[in-house]
């Protein structure tokens, strides 16, 4: 691999390729900062996927019907798959899988704040599919055209699968919203709980995101946080209206002139509190992940022992 010390000619060639909307592939020369930025982003994206299995996994045994249970199982399995696609993409940049997991388990790398909120009723599972996966799709679709080939290809796969996630959530939400008064209330409560955290998923306002410009120049990020958030609000408010539910924002209004919904201030203190580790479920999520990893150690050891035994036998037969 070529050295990543600053080399104006190589740097120029690299940037020209990005500006021409061409893709960077693993063995190409790339600036050290580009490599680092991508490893960090892809790894934390992967962590978000696998931690994201927990809030919904919490309801697999209590799904209200066999149909819902089968759907939820498939969805949670998809999240595991998305995590694996992404860890593989990070490894093409020279990261190590075990090391990335260690960085997650020791809290040095983070995951999306959204997964530190609890799923207190079945309606939360519906709301996650509809809102959280809906917000994720808004973020992830532009990433299918990201300048780094392996990340873009992983995102194409993820986005294909993610649309089922959002639809099943909206369908489950529809059943509740059109159901008994108690079910309606459950649906509204879930929307009240998940609306603002979903808007926070797009990250701080543009004027508070100093690194975004570099990511844009590198073709990693294509739209600003506020642009994507606006798209999400514009797409989702009519869906809430269809459900007959009320978006918990007294400042929300349609702005005829701009053709967009205007919405209230986001409570960024809450966002930073959750990111720092003091959200409702931070400790529980991480403990659960570490426990799953440690309790699964014997499986990895057994698989390695089996592989070693098979390799020995093959050698003996050949000898």
């Amino acid at each position: 691999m070529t050295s990543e010390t600053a080399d104006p000619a190589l740097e120029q060639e690299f940037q020209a390729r990005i500006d021409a909307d061409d893709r960077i592939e693993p063995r190409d020369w790339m600036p050290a900062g580009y490599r680092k930025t991508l490893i960090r982003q892809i790894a934390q994206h992967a962590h978000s996927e696998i931690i994201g299995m927990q809030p919904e996994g919490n309801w697999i045994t209590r799904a209200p019907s066999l149909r819902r249970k089968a759907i939820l199982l498939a969805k949670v399995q998809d999240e595991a798959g998305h995590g694996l696609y992404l860890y593989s993409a990070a490894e093409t940049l020279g990261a190590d899988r075990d090391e990335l997991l260690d960085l997650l388990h020791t809290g040095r790398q983070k995951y999306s704040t959204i997964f530190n909120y609890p799923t207190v009723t079945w309606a939360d599972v519906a709301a996650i599919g509809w809102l959280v996966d809906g917000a994720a799709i808004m973020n992830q679709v532009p990433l299918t055209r990201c300048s780094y080939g392996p990340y873009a290809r992983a995102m194409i796969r993820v986005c294909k699968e993610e649309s089922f996630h959002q639809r099943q959530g909206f369908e489950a939400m529809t059943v509740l919203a059109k159901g008994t008064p108690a079910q309606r209330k459950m649906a509204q409560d879930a929307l009240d709980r998940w609306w603002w955290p979903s808007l926070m998923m797009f990250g701080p306002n543009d004027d508070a995101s100093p690194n975004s410009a570099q990511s844009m120049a590198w073709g990693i990020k294509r739209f600003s946080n506020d642009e994507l958030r606006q798209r999400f609000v514009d797409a989702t408010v009519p869906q809430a209206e269809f459900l007959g539910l009320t978006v918990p924002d007294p400042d929300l209004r349609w702005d005829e002139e701009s053709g967009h919904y205007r919405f209230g201030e986001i409570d960024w203190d809450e966002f930073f509190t959750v990111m720092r580790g003091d959200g409702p479920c931070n400790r529980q999520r991480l403990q659960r992940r570490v426990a799953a990893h440690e309790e699964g150690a014997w499986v990895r050891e057994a698989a390695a022992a089996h592989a070693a035994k098979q390799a020995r036998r093959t050698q003996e037969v050949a000898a």
Partner: protein
Amino acid sequence: MTEGSSFTSAGGHGAVPTTDVPVDEGGFPGSQPLWEVFVRSKRGLSHTHAGSLHAPDAHMALRNARDLYTRRQEGVSIWVVRAADVVASSPDEKDAFFDPAGDKPYRHPTFYEVPAEVKNL
């Protein structure tokens, strides 16, 4: 961790920090080898690279590949190859390596002029 100073957003499934996050510390020897996965999506088509995964041996790699890359009937056949066994051309030698084909446009049918009145050529 405060707004602006040590945190900006990036990430697909929700915002995550982009500063004060270590990315490579080294010293973690991989416990399971990496495998490249190739999937034939249907009969009549060749196997295409789908991605990679970790597994202790070829048998487990195939099973993992089935669960990871064909959850929606994306394939009728899978190959797994140890990533360490793949021999690749290096982009550094791109020019010299692919140059021989660069000056041979006569290998393409569009190189030749065909009179308008001549058919079936």
